[in-house]
């Protein structure tokens, strides 16, 4: 902190009783304290204290997981904003969507940010999966985390799909009519699943409300839960794996 323009203020804050009651370690000036910064913070402790320098290189992971998670945070923030104006009822849902587009200050910006963020999240998740596949990072000991990742992809796609109905325009209505009719074609369980999902036989107000609850509560909670396991397992399985090392003997298959 000696290099900063306000060393005294920094020192005064860090030595105050209030600050020390929240952050128990001192300045990050020793290896021990630098480790404690990570250990003692709920949000940072997901991350290891030390990582290999090469894993931070762009071409190691192309940062695709980070892109996907960043899109998710943008979606949570903009989604909460949209919820302040949106009623999941017929025909108010369509009017609210129009109001967000044409009346609310910056409404069109946040609505479009939510939409483009959703596209980016799906694209990021798919590219992340491709990257992991071609780097052979799905192999033991990471095979379970691959499965968790597939679940995360499914939850992401379901979030994308349930959000599709909410504007309650023609595209949404027919998109969900067609999609739930595809689900109905599954043997035995198909028709009851469609009935429970829509809360009826046709895409109606019940369906809008159910998709809203799935989109805003159930699926995001599921996503955050699986995401916690996913990131934790990256650490426990030995950190991110980038491109596989070339074999020492070129004759041997890696």
């Amino acid at each position, binding site marked *: 902190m000696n290099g900063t323009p306000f060393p005294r203020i920094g020192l005064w804050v860090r030595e105050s009783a209030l600050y020390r009651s929240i952050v128990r370690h001192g300045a990050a000036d020793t290896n021990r304290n630098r480790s404690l910064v990570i250990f003692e913070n709920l949000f940072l402790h997901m991350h290891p204290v030390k990582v290999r320098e090469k894993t931070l290189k762009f071409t190691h992971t192309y940062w695709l997981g980070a892109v996907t998670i960043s899109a998710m945070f943008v979606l949570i923030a903009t989604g909460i904003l949209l919820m302040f104006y949106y009623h999941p009822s017929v025909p108010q849902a369509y009017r609210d969507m129009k109001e967000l587009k044409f009346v609310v200050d910056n409404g069109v910006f946040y609505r479009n940010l939510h939409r483009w963020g959703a596209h980016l999240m799906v694209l990021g998740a798919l590219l992340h999966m491709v990257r992991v596949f071609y780097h052979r990072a799905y192999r033991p000991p990471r095979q379970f985390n691959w499965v968790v990742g597939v679940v995360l992809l499914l939850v992401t796609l379901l979030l994308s799909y349930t959000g599709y109905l909410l504007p309650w325009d023609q595209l949404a209505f*027919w998109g969900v*009519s*067609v999609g739930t*009719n*595809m689900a109905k074609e599954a043997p035995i369980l198909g028709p009851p699943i469609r*009935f*429970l999902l829509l*809360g*009826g*036989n*046709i895409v*109606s*107000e*019940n369906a809008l409300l159910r998709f809203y609850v799935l989109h805003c509560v159930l699926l995001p909670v599921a996503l955050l839960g699986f995401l916690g396991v996913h990131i934790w397992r990256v650490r426990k399985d030995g950190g991110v794996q980038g491109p596989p090392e070339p074999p020492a003997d070129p004759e041997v298959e890696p």
Partner: protein
Amino acid sequence: MREADEGMAMPPGPNDASRREFLAQVGLGACALTIAGAALTVLDFMEPKVLFEPPTEFKAGNIQDFPEGTVRFDEEHRAYIIGGQGGVFALSAVCTHLGCITRYHADEGAIACPCHGSRFDVDGNVVHGPAPRALPWIEVKADAEGNLMVDTSVVIPHGKVLKV
């Protein structure tokens, strides 16, 4: 003496262990039953008992209004009422592919779906895919004056025309 002592003190034996296991299993079973009960009640709760969906039965005018060759599209009830040879019949207008609403094109004498391009003739037969099945024939009834009632929820055999 030694035998009597053993009998009174009841040292831990194989019976005690199995009692503990039994109680543990009863406890686990109770938990499993509770979870299963909760799951069933939630599943039951999610199934709506009353639906405010449009009625499937509707009036469709008089049989006199449907001379041979008439095709009337009822948009609200998603059905065609058609004057056929010697009588009247009705077709569901919901595409058998993925549930979009088809339209009758009088100039081509064909029923077509806007979503994925399925085509049907006026008897409901598939002319062009991807629809896997013919449009279902639905029940038409007439009272003594010839007033028609159509029920989209009752599927009748293909070709069963209501005779005039």
